[in-house]
């Protein structure tokens, strides 16, 4: 049972942005979702956990590894898929994975080959192992990305915004892959897409402006909102008026007309209907209200 403990983590960039503001988290085996809008500090946190960035203060330990003092020790048990995953030109999928495998310490070449074939097979790219990765589609590239992150039995896997820009099919495939990795390791999935978390994670945190605004299970948080979310279809020019009078969680267009969700302990009446809160409601509630 691995545990990642993040204590009082702070980071302020030279331009004054407070990217991490006293972040405290404790994460253990299983898939952990980190949800937040763009610019919430998710990537800063991910990079810090991946030893690619310094924190101003605070500690992070994985089991007994202090990742700031012994970054190399952490890297030995780390799988990381960054937000921006590029590849070398003119290098085939197999060559790329081979290179990363050596760097991660899989030194026996026969074992390495078997491992890479296994992973390529798992991400369903075995047929394309000889092709240049540069020419792959976004989804295929992300699958190579997850394959390289899985090399070397990592105990901590960090995937940063992996599904941005993928079509629904690719996204599903990707989710299946992550789910397959099993429950024996810590997987931190950072995303701004609520569905990713809903579909995959048993535990989650919501981050905004460098702060953790919520930590818990998705089910629990939705229970918290139960009976407090109301929905109504309105005219476009009424949005401002409703925003002034109600705690509007979200407004979105359905068939050309705005539908608003509002938060209220009791039924506001006035044509509002009760609705089962979804994770999106949670997200908006935590972030904007």
């Amino acid at each position: 049972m691995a545990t990642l403990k993040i204590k009082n983590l702070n980071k302020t960039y030279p331009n004054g942005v407070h990217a991490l503001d006293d972040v405290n988290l404790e994460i253990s085996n299983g898939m952990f979702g980190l949800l937040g809008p763009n610019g919430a500090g998710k990537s800063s946190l991910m990079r810090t956990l991946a030893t690619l960035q310094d924190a101003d203060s605070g500690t992070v330990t994985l089991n007994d590894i202090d990742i700031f003092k012994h970054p190399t020790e952490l890297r030995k048990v780390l799988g990381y898929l960054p937000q921006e995953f590029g590849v070398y030109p003119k290098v085939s999928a197999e060559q790329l994975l081979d290179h990363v495998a050596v760097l991660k310490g899989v030194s026996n070449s026969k074992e390495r080959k078997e491992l890479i074939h296994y992973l390529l097979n798992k991400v369903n790219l075995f047929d394309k192992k000889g092709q240049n990765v540069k020419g792959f589609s976004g989804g295929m590239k992300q699958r190579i990305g997850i394959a390289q992150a899985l090399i070397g039995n990592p105990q901590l896997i960090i995937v940063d915004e992996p599904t941005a820009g993928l079509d629904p099919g690719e996204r599903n495939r990707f989710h299946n892959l992550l789910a397959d990795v099993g429950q024996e390791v810590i997987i931190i999935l950072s995303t701004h897409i609520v569905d990713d978390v809903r579909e995959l994670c048993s535990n989650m945190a919501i981050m905004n402006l460098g702060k953790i605004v919520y930590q818990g299970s998705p089910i629990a948080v939705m229970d918290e909102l139960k009976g407090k979310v109301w929905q109504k279809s309105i005219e476009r020019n009424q949005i401002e008026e409703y925003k002034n009078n109600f705690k509007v969680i979200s407004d979105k267009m359905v068939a050309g007309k705005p539908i608003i969700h509002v938060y209220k302990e009791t039924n506001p009446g006035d044509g509002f209907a009760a609705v089962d809160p979804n994770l999106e409601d949670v997200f908006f509630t935590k972030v904007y209200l």
Partner: protein
Amino acid sequence: MFLEFFKREIDSAIRKPMIYIFFFIMALLVFMAVVSDNVVIGGTVGNVYKNAPSVITNYVAILSIFGLLIATAFFNTAALKDYDNNFNEILFSTPISKASYFFGRFFGALFLSTIPLCGIFLGFLLGAEYGPKMGTISVERIGSFHAASFINNYLLFILPNMFFAGTIIFSMANKWKSTVISFVGALLIIIGYIVSGTLLSDIDSETIGALTDTFGIRAYSIDTKYFTPVEKNTIPVGFNGLLIINRLIWLALGVVILLGSYFAFSFTAKQKKAKKKKSSESLETKPIFTQSPEFSLNHSGSLLWKQFISFFKVNLTSMVKSTTYKIMFAFSAFILIANLFNGFEYFGLQSYPVTYKMMDLIDGTSGLFVIIILVFFSGELVWRDRANHINEVIDATPHGSFTSLLAKSVSLIVVASSINLFLIVVSICFQFMKGYSNVELGIYLQNFIYNSFPTYITWGLILVFIQVILNNKYMGYFVSVLVLFLLDILFMILDIDSKMLNIGSTPSLTYSDMNGFGAALKSVHWFNLYWISFGILFLLIAGLLWIRGTSVGFKSRLKSAKKHFSKKYALGLVTVLLVWLSTAGFVYYNTQVLNTYKTADEMEVLQAEYEKTYKKYQGINQPKITDTKYHIDIYPHQRDVYVRAIVTIKNKSDQPIDSLHYTIDDSWKTKVHLKNAEQVLNDEKFGYQIFKLNTPLQPGKSMRMLVESVYSAKGFENEVSNTSVAANGTFFNNFSILPNFGYNEGYELADKNDRKKYDLPEKDRMPELESNCSINCMNNYLSDGSADWVNVETYISTSDDQIAIAPGSLVKEWKKDGRNHYHYKVDHPSQNFYSFMSARYEKATRKWNNIDIEVYYDSKHPYNVERMLNAVQHSLEYYTENFGPYYHKQARIIEFPRYASFAQAFPGTMPYSEAIGFIIDLEGKTEINIVDAVIAHEMAHQWWAHQVIGSKMQGATMFSESFAEYSSLMVMKKATNDEIKMKDFLKYDLNRYLRGRSNEVDKELPIYKVENQTHIHYGKGSVILYALQDYIGEDRVNQAMKGFLNEFKYKEPPYPTSLDFLRHLEAQVPDSLQYLITDWFKEITLYDLRLKEATYSKQNNKYQVSIDIEAKKLRADTIGNELEQPLNEWIDVGFYSMYNDEEDARLLYQERIKIDQEHMTLNFVLDSLPVKAAIDPRRILIERVYNDNLKSLTEKNGEAN
């Protein structure tokens, strides 16, 4: 519309700083060159004005090569701006005209790229104005400006050069839409320029070289190669000569390229070609995995190696697959091959492709390309992960940063080496192709491993360090280039010679077939270790400061460094640091403490001080050497020489001498031992010593002195200071081992401007010629008063594998203590000028009239030995018959290593460099050639210089060097018996004279007052003597020389002057030709002959030929002003029966005609029809432009009129 695009181009450029920066750089560069003598652009200016029209043109032409980079920037921007900004689709959907768009941008860019080059003009104007005011140059060195200089240079160089370059760059940019390709275009132009330069090496192909030069530089230099200083100062470049033809050719080519590009240009965006997908159906069946395979993780030492290899492979593949690498690879091979096929020309002959020539070419060719590769890829590799956005993945793996950086460096080094090694393969193939089978692969590899490879390693490490530390790719490039090139210049300015400070520099390594890599090798090894450990040290530091992840700022880099600074790392760092420090200490001890050297500036100061302190002793009465007995022990392998010389000196004056003065050279430790004398001065700084004799040396009396002299090599040096003592090929002369008697004028600063700097008075190159000299003719110019004719005996020993040679007959040879001993004795008192040599020699001998002809040569160079014996014999035959007896019993040619490439005549011996003659390919060459000529020249010195020598004043070298060169020509003439062939030899001498006078730094004097200048005594001397024998007959010239020789040979002083020879000559010249002595010897006379018209008509099977000629005789003053002289000349007119080129020309008829008018029409009746008529057909007169002396005959259609 055209104007709109034109203006748009300019508008956008003038709002950016680039154009001003370039303009400023150009102006500054030229300004510096004008106001300072230390900044030189393409060669020194000499004594023409700093702002002379020829200087302006040279600067403009040379800087337009650099202007190419500016042009690339502007034309590339013009072509790609709209694409780069993705504006093209918007723009091209508007109704603009293609022509306006295309040409508007082109000419806009053209105009822009000429602007920075106009900075040159500003530099000249400011330099001329402020140079004298700042006091860095004197006002006499500034001339007046000519408007034509600016306008013509703009129209003839700046505009056409930018235009042509622009057409190529603009077309390539339009076609491929890539900045890299545009720079490749610029590179192509430069390479074309270099290749065309290889055509210029022989004067026969220089016209082609001039026309194929893209920049017109060579066309201009050939047009003006014989310009006198006055012409350089006054004549602006004009629209004429080869230059205008060259300009028109390239302009036309440019227009063709531009139009081609215009028609290929289209607004419709080209569809990117979809690459055919490779069907990579793998044959492997898809494995079925149920669970993850077993594998083990390993973080031990062996993994480091595997990680290193993996990084290395990834880096190497990326470089090898890149276009840049392929281009560099192809270009370097291309240039090498072009150079190889151009061959190793030496006066119209080819030398064998010996290994060292190939290695010099490889090193020369690979140099620039390797530097480009190292700089370019160091940036690419360091930024590769980040550029491809894979850095975070790689950085998050548990590898050491040093491993990754080291892999980058090593792959850089391997890629650089691949070019060098490939060039070696090409060279070896070439050697085989040429049938040269002595392929020395080992030598190639050694040269690579000692020389290039360590340099690549050092730079491979340092450049990666620079990129990592600066953490900005372009800053990194900038600093890399600065460090690579500017450091040299900086150290030159700061007068720092130590190679320990100039990154990557090592002592120069010269491979000689005789002496291998020589004494420098040891030093090079130590410097290599020093620089490589330095490089590794810095890479280790870079490994710590390498940014893992996305941290910014130096602080966080230090923080990260601390985290990664493990004990092991510290141990490595300290070890390397210790290795570097101890190497540095050792190198410092050897190059700065054990062996010292003086920098150029230190030397200058010393020279100036020496003159100021001791000039007062110049010319004081000193005894002269009459006999010397040398005991010399050479230890070639230790590079030690021990000399003991017993020197007999005699007071030849009529005054008693009470003290002896010496100047001692500091590279040899020389000690003088005198009995009954007291040392009263020992100035160690200048090596000046004075001994006071207890009893003065009376006139006519002699005394003996013992001189001990030692050269002993210690450790290793910053640069090998003494190549004359070598493991195989020792060659030194008596001047190095004996002290110099009295004050040595030879140490004085010679350069006019240097002297001014140290407040020294102006100095004549030579004392003035005197017609009635008494005291001033007591010294000859060679031994300068130290001796007249001396007896020499030598006991010399060397190691048992070598032969030691001293002058004179070998009296005895024996072996003792495992060493070879020899005793030589000179048979006739001779000049005090002797060489001592030792090497592993082969020996070829021949006896001719009781004279032993001997060639001592290296076993690798047997090719021409037989010919050399012949050449010596032919020379002896001609000279003994025409001039008089040879007084030695042997004539030796002795090979020495190529640290110098000359042949030199000592009494009875002629050291001859391995670089000339011995390796010239004479296979199948039956006719006489330069190898024979050089030997004939040196043999002639046995008479001219060694039997008769001039007093130390103007004109002295005429009857050593001019006579030797003339004698050599006569030996050639006798052997070839072909006047046209002789023209081939003469053209080298004529060219040497005309070019030499064009570069005259002071003033030109007629030959009878020559001041030891090679272009006059070799060049002009041989040409006029040759012409003279043509005019008055070979016998009469020889008779004059012989008479002169007989009057003075081996005579005690006074020594003869050139006037003594002219006295003998006048007696041999008929009255009708006496004017030649004045014109040719006592004045500077040039001819300007032209053939205007040549026609013929056929009458009764005979040909009536009529030619119109134009003739001028010009007298030049010392700075080249020419004055026309009245004509009353005898000049040849001739007709060729065949003339395809100079080689196969055949003279059908020639006649010497009296020419007394500027324009004359001459008529001849010939039996057969000639193809060409010529005035001075054998080119024996001194004339600058010869092309207009020839004309093809045309039939006269007189009847029709």
